[in-house]
């Protein structure tokens, strides 16, 4: 969180309504999102209690484990969940495009991908655990489950892993996404309460949001008072209807909030890089589907050393790219970098479009631009710059003093003796330049998995899920 966001929070607190901290939407929103609100039994790691899910706001599907300690009912619940989620997920595999790759075979990429929308990060974590607890099950052997259950487990595991990938929109958590676009007048901790956060954005704060009788928690944990006073007696009564009705009361309010939140996010124009990140999501999704089709084993319990290191490197790269893209897409995000002096914006006051360096064959066109800015520039001469206004352009800082910045354009103005039309900003134009750029160092060279050094455990054994995985208790 930056000072800019802190200021927005102060303003929100003062005005009694959340303040925008983004001018565009940085998350992809599916035309047909699968809203998924799971509940778990308190005190258990991954014992599902209920879920409401669906792609249409007026058709929520409620799934309930009416006797949460019964293992068979739990797997039956997982099978029901699979019956709803798998057709949704697999429905995106039919329509594909062929993607050509350099030095590799072309592959098929789904034109669209599924999107599971969860209320909060805890819901995302629980979904991942659901995946972990079901992906090793088997349809045959001593404790058989429906074949759809392990398949669901592998997909949920995949979605869970992908959710940790910065900028991925396959399984967003609503409170996080709202928090990326609005600053409420409360702390980040309190923003984890969906009703409270949404209240700040829409009507302004209300103590009702913290009253579990009015707004039950958005899961996966249930309200302890509800557990004691409603759920426990209902389970004890042995009446499936009563348990179902009790859980419905806990899920319905959140269901409405979720769609409200989606509407709010949909009201923002989409950021320029969102489609590109979604394309990565689609590629990744197709890759996972291909692995499943090829009969690959379930994801291992733990990554080997090389896999873990390369995963970490990928996450870091994605994080950096995501931050840069958001800044380029959104002046309000860029403003954070302007505040710290890594970016500046202002009006072009002077240009020398035909300025060149060197003579004869080594003569290079280097148009000069002078910008007047109020921003505190903290960039050294020679710093490479980019600009959201012309994403292909490269520039270099020449000097910066007294609110005047001179820079020379080094890339993206054509190959002629004079710059291509429109490639150099005109006098009077408002522009922004920043030292943030989207090109990264390549990843550190990691050995192949087979060459894992002994310091890191040596080459990992091929992962073969065993009987033990399949029979693991789920109690």
């Amino acid at each position: 969180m930056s000072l800019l966001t802190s200021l927005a929070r102060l303003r929100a607190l003062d005005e009694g309504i959340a303040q925008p901290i983004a001018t565009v939407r940085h998350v992809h929103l599916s035309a047909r999102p699968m809203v998924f609100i799971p509940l778990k039994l308190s005190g258990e790691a991954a014992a599902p209690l209920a879920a409401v899910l669906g792609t249409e706001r007026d058709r929520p599907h409620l799934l309930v484990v009416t006797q949460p300690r019964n293992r068979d009912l739990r797997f039956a619940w997982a099978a029901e969940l699979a019956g709803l989620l798998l057709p949704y997920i697999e429905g995106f595999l039919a329509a594909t495009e062929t993607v050509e790759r350099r030095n590799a075979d072309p592959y098929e990429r789904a034109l669209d991908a599924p999107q599971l929308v969860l209320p909060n990060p805890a819901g995302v974590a629980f979904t991942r655990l659901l995946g972990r607890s079901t992906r090793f099950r088997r349809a045959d052997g001593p404790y058989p489950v429906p074949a759809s259950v392990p398949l669901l487990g592998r997909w949920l595991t995949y979605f869970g892993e992908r959710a940790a990938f910065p900028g991925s929109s396959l399984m967003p958590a609503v409170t996080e996404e709202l928090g990326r676009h609005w600053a409420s007048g409360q702390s980040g901790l309190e923003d984890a309460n969906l009703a409270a956060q949404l209240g700040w954005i829409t009507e302004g704060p209300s103590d009702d949001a913290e009253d579990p009788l009015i707004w039950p928690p958005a899961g996966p944990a249930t309200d302890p008072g509800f557990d004691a006073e409603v759920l426990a007696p209902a389970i004890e009564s042995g009446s499936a209807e009563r348990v179902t009705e009790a859980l419905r009361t806990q899920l319905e309010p959140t269901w409405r909030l979720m769609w409200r939140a989606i509407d709010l996010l949909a009201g923002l124009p989409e950021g320029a890089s969102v489609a590109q990140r979604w394309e990565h999501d689609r590629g990744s999704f197709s890759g996972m589907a291909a692995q499943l089709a090829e009969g690959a084993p379930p994801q291992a319990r733990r990554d080997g050393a090389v896999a873990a290191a390369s995963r970490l490197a990928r996450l870091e790269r994605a994080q950096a790219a995501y931050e840069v893209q958001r800044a380029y897409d959104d002046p309000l995000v860029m403003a954070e970098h302007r505040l710290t002096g890594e970016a500046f914006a202002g009006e072009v006051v002077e240009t020398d479009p035909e300025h060149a360096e060197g003579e004869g064959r080594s003569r290079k066109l280097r148009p000069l631009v002078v910008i007047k800015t109020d921003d505190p520039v903290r960039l050294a001469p020679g710093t490479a710059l980019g600009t959201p206004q012309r994403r292909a352009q490269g520039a270099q800082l020449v000097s910066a003093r007294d609110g005047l910045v001179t820079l020379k354009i080094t890339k993206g103005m054509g190959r002629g003796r004079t710059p291509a039309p429109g490639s150099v900003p005109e006098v009077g134009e408002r522009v922004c330049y920043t030292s943030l750029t989207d090109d990264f160092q390549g990843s550190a060279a990691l050995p192949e998995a087979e060459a894992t050094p002994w310091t890191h455990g040596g080459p990992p054994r091929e992962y073969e899920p065993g009987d033990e995985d399949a029979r693991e208790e789920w109690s």
Partner: protein
Amino acid sequence: MNRLDALRGTTPQKPHDARAIAALAANPGCARRALLDGAGIDKDAAARHLGFPAPFGQSPFAITRGNVFEALVKADGCAELLRMLRELLGLPIAEVAYHDVENVGAHLRHAHTRALFDRAARDGGDAGTVYDHPLLSLDIAGHTAYLEPDVVAFQLGGRFHIVEIKSFAVIDGQADPSAVAAAARQAAVYVLALRRMLRELGHDPLRVAHDVVLVCPENFANRPVASPLDVRRQLGVLERQLSRMTGLDRLLDGLPADLTFDLLPDEDGLPTRPAAELADALRGATARYAPDCLSACDLCFFCRDEARQEGATDLLGRHVRDELGGVASVGEALGLADGARDPAEGQEEIARLLRNAERLRRECLA
């Protein structure tokens, strides 16, 4: 310590438990909490009486689950626990002696525990191995808090180990970090209490290992698994905080002489003191509210309400407060940002940043 008793007045003292003691370290700068805890005041009752009941509760399912799991670990003479101690710490096969300290009446349990541990520390070889629910004590600002660790194990190289049984799961070798941290803080309280007991008895306190044994269910089953947990850091924090508690005198000196947090309970234990009067009294001791209090302190909603009325930047979290460089009120910070207010000495830099931030926000949202 008479002054602390006066603060509590006629309200019965609320004994500390390990979690409460561990939580003392959560917000060391809060004078209100230090005084209330030092005087042994029931913060939960006070908060409810003030109309700000704390937002915590525990699900009966979680409680049952915890009890069932503890029973399972200890069933059949701690059969599961012995297996884990043998595997994890190399406990010799011959060491199986089990003492159920809870077999002794409540009033004798602490003395019995002392006698057992004294004998263990003295005789070594012939002492017990597993002590179920011993009762330890710890002095908090002049009052004795009684503490009941799940198990204390002895005979691992002549050292005592605290065994902490928790029902959160360890999945593929990983557990919820916040749950582990809470367990470590709680276990540190037991380590400290046991060390002090040994010192009083004339033994080397360091015979209590700083590695506690954390027992949790593994993956999704009920099967227990043990892991060692180093609590040296938590011990350090705790000792520092407790030594500060004994320095309550300084806090007391700053209070009006007639200040009391007495709830004036009637014979049914229900508070009769006017809530507004109690609220005024509490405001006499300065709080340091932070959103973290919402998960740690019974009075959190009262203090949050106070912070709201004061328009304190504390409401937004420590991070925001730190970033504002100590500008304590929302109005002041916004005034600096708008330029409506001139920076006081030392505020020039934060004022410049805020003005710049305000300019940028206006520009981008225009």
